[in-house]
């Protein structure tokens, strides 16, 4: 039987949500920034390495929002897994990280959520260490859509968590 799960990416404008999806689905990257308006939907079929389950990830790339409370709730209904993305080079995109994560967890309890610090190629390891108060507490993965670092792992890891949650 075919298993399909809805994955939603949220975060501020220009943090690289669309680039991460493009890297994951099409294995491509472009420097040209095109703002996402509304929602863009793509899908990818993956085989999970641990459970060997075949799963279709239907990925909703929502338009960026500086205030998470302005995200259309109707786009989030029925979500099986969240990816919260921020840009490590722009503090404004992770200053409200804790509040944003609380907002999601309150409204969508038991839905797996992974936090991604994107644009790793633009920061040093020292910078990550210096900001460990924020990054160390919340971040699950440091990714680079440009180089592809950790991109597949993020989606695979979330898919594993989604399947685990579904089997409960």
């Amino acid at each position: 039987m075919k298993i399909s799960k809805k994955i939603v990416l949220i975060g501020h404008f220009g943090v690289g949500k669309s680039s991460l999806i493009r890297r994951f689905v099409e294995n491509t990257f472009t420097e040209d920034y095109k703002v996402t308006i509304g929602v863009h939907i793509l899908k990818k079929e993956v085989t999970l390495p641990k459970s060997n389950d075949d799963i279709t990830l239907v990925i909703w790339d929502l338009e960026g929002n500086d205030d998470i409370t302005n995200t259309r709730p109707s786009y989030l209904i029925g979500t099986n897994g969240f990816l919260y993305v921020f840009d490590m080079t722009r503090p404004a995109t992770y200053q409200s990280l804790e509040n944003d994560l609380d907002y999601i967890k309150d409204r969508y309890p038991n839905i797996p959520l992974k936090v991604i610090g994107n644009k790793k190629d633009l920061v040093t390891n020292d910078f990550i260490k210096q900001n460990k108060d924020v990054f160390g507490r919340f971040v699950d993965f440091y990714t680079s859509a440009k180089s592809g670092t950790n991109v597949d792992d993020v989606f695979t890891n979330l898919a594993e968590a989604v399947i685990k949650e579904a089997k409960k």
Partner: protein
Amino acid sequence: MNQEDKLKILKDILLKDEHEYASSIEVKLKKLEDLINKQNNLSKHIDPILEDKLEAFIKEMPKTLGPTITQTLQEEIKNSQDAVVEALYPIMGKMIKKYVQKEIQILSENINKSLNNTFSWASIKRKFRSKKSGVSQGDMIIHDQFKSKIEQIMVIESGSGLIVSEYSKTEGIDQDTVAGMLTAIKSFAQDAFTTQIQNLEYIEYENYHIHLQNFSNYYIAVVISGAFTATFRSKLEDKLLDFAQNIINKTDLENSDIFNTKLKDYFDNENI
């Protein structure tokens, strides 16, 4: 040595530097004359400069002249609509004519195919219907060519937009993505009209009509080609309601294989 010779020697001594300077200027002037008067020499120096400038001009032209040209064109088109129509008419006319010819050819081929199948069950049925109703077989064939045809049915979970079940006669679209997009459009419409009571029920996409039948936990999207008449729509709605009420049950929603079989069995004959 007379006075004049002495004076000449003195002049030579005093004006030696000026003489040399004048001579060098004379040489330079000669060179300049050669440069200016001989085209080959001049072009060697000026061509690279002109090429650079021209290249820069070509690069910059869209930025500098683009808006002016666009504005001028817009104004010209606005002010001379008749002339534009006259210019475009032959091209558009040819394109439309070609398209219509192609469509008529397809229609003609389909009619011929239908007429050639004289001994097919459909043909016998048509002949019988024709005699009974008094409508000519030709009219019936033409009517059949334009009648509504179900291309695809997707049962989609409300909210998530994930496909519960689907049935299609032709593979052509990515159902998961389309189902997601339809759900996003529905959600957007609901948000925009700030009501949860009303639902988006119909979308037109080029030659296709997408009918959306809404239920509490899911909705059914039916992709239709041909003329989507009010009669067909009404019959389709009755069929979908009957399917939802009498054919499937809640547990089928969790088992897409059973749902798929029921959907295919019910809509395969397309008796609408």
